């Protein structure tokens, strides 16, 4: 067995089937999508080569494209600067040795196990301006002036969707960070305690540095999730009102499958793939640092 594991050719041979499947079902469709992005094609009639026209249209003529890019940025920033700190805070809380911490951990994680469609539909009802729970509660609390048409107003729709996605996935990051915190040896905290580093100082000088690899993974996952958000927006607003919540993935779907512009839809897909790859690569470069050891 050990001999087999040291034989690089044999290892490569065993990897071939998996790699082949991966190439067929991942890289080939991406390459074909790139090919379609240079065509005008309705998915039925013969394609017509249009060169970079779809990309020109995307960057210059499609008004909602830049709105979608901005919305992706909003999702990204919320994921990194709101959801992640919240998750970290929750992970710290449930890491403490206190009564019921397992129960709290499960409660915070519970939304993650619910399907995005279900969560989105639930919140559509909560946000409903006419019969929804949120406005009713605000009115009951004599805060009726705060009541809004949450998903029906261009000013509040994006924020409303962001709140839902944050609520939905905060437990996911919490669990990853919690596992990371559990992996930090207690002896570091005990040593730090002797030096007077307790409470926030222990978090600042022990927990955060030792969690850096886990945090990096969380940031990359959050960013990629943000850039390809589809389901929650599709169910809650369908990109509206007036494109205020549209996303690249949603536009791609609408162009390809509703407007039957497979060529332009493919161009959007290529943009999304490149966007994800470039940002993930940059993040990896920026966030990679030497491993800290105490």
């Amino acid at each position, binding site marked *: 067995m050990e001999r087999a594991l040291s034989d690089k050719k044999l290892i490569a041979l065993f990897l071939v089937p998996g790699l082949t499947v991966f190439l067929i079902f991942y890289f080939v469709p991406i390459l074909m999508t790139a090919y379609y992005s240079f065509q005008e094609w309705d998915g039925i009639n013969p394609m017509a080569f249009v060169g970079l026209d779809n990309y020109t249209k995307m960057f210059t003529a499609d008004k909602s494209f830049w709105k979608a890019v901005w919305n992706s940025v909003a999702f990204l920033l919320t994921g990194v600067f709101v959801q992640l700190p919240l998750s970290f805070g929750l992970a710290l809380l449930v890491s403490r040795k206190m009564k019921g911490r397992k129960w709290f951990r499960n409660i915070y994680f519970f939304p993650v196990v619910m399907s995005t469609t279900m969560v989105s539909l639930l919140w559509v009802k909560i946000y*409903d301006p006419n019969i929804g729970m949120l406005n009713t509660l605000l009115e009951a609390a004599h805060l009726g002036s705060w009541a809004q048409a949450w998903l029906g107003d261009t000013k509040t729709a994006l924020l409303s969707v962001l709140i839902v996605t944050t609520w939905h996935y905060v437990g996911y990051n919490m669990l990853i960070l919690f596992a990371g915190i559990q992996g930090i040896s207690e002896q570091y905290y005990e040593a730090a305690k002797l030096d007077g580093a307790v409470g926030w100082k222990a978090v600042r000088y022990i927990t955060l540095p030792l969690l850096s690899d886990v945090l990096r993974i969380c940031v990359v996952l959050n960013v990629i999730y943000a850039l390809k958000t589809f*389901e929650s927006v599709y169910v809650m607003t369908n990109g509206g009102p007036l494109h205020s919540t549209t996303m690249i993935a949603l536009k791609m779907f609408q162009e390809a499958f509703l407007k039957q512009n497979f060529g332009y839809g493919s161009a959007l897909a290529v943009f999304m793939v490149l966007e994800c790859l470039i940002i993930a690569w940059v993040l990896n470069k920026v966030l990679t640092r030497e491993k800290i050891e105490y």
Partner: protein
Amino acid sequence: MFGKKLGVVAASIALSSVVLSACGGANGNEGATQNQDAKAAEGKESVSLWMFDADPMYQAAAEATAAEVGVDLNYEYIQDETYKTKISVALAANELPDVFQQHAGKSYRTPVLQSKTVAPLNDTLDSTGLGAKFLDNQLVKEEDGNIYSVPSNISTTLVFYYNKKLMSDLGATPPATWDDLQALVSKADDKGIIPIALGGKERWQGDLLYNLLVARQDVNVFDNAIKGDAKFTDAPFVDAAKQVATLVSSNAFQKGFLGSAYLDAQELFKNDKALIWIDGSFNFGALSKAMGDNLGYIAFPKTGAEDVYSATIGFQNSAAPYSLFVNNSSKHLDKAKEFAIKLSLKLNDEFVRKGLPGYAASEVKSESQNEQLSAYATDISKTAKTQAMWFGLLSADTGQEYRDMTQQLYGGNLTPEEYTAQLETLLRSAE
């Protein structure tokens, strides 16, 4: 370079896994095919059918037809909005069921015909003699002389429903004119009642309301503009757009209506929260069942120069009606054709039974209608013109752009003048 089917499947995979999940249940067809194979092994032929009409009447008619034709039926109901996506993917990938329903309108019908995946029905219509049962012009003959579809629905139109209880609570009467409508909207709004429930999320309700407001200004202006004899910036288009803006500014629609789903908005009407509901006549049955005598109906008010019987907005046009198509790759093509034609006639019987004008000869006697449906049938018989909804006359691409634009009018992002100017550009360039 690549095969069409391979291309679409690959594009679908690459475009996104989430898209596939939105299409929901693409495996249904595979399941149907496997089931079909199993049934075939037992000696009985099987037919798979996709439908988007939620009325239980459709499934009952399909099951009765299957029994009559002697086939096993794999019936799949798919929610309307999901259906539009699913069918376009299935068409492109040639993964269609044996028989499927398709929406009315050019943007839905043209891709089906262009895909060359549907079978001509002429031979079966002739050999069974059933073709003679369809009334004149109800079977659409395409350019190649073939008939590729049979009707699956009668002509349905836009209807002005109102909630009788709320109308009575307001001490008001249904509006007959634009001024009446404005006064009623104002009165309802003052009393905290939603004047008009509108599902803005899907966009089509607002779009059709605008179509009707234009038709009330000038019954022929849209046809003339499309032909190039008038402009979309002419007074009737602008005036109707101003009426939309007036309705929005006078709180005629519920809070957040642009984000409201059609079914959610309908619930407001059914649950006595909204006074008026503008929807298709296809919903008479469901609304009557839900609301009983509380459901009111009137012909849409005279909001412009034209009278109330000048025109209505139809969900289909004679060249692109709601239809049943047969997949030409069906393993049981002859049975599938026979099934589709007989199902169309069975559905016709059901419409006639309800007292509605059918599209084929029927020996079924009409059952007594409720008062509202009876009034609607009378009004329709008096209506001079059924203007096909504009969306149904446009290509998929242009139609979606047009609906986006109309939503911007409702959202106040475009003034009536800006909106009609953009309409002129869009629809003129789409000619």
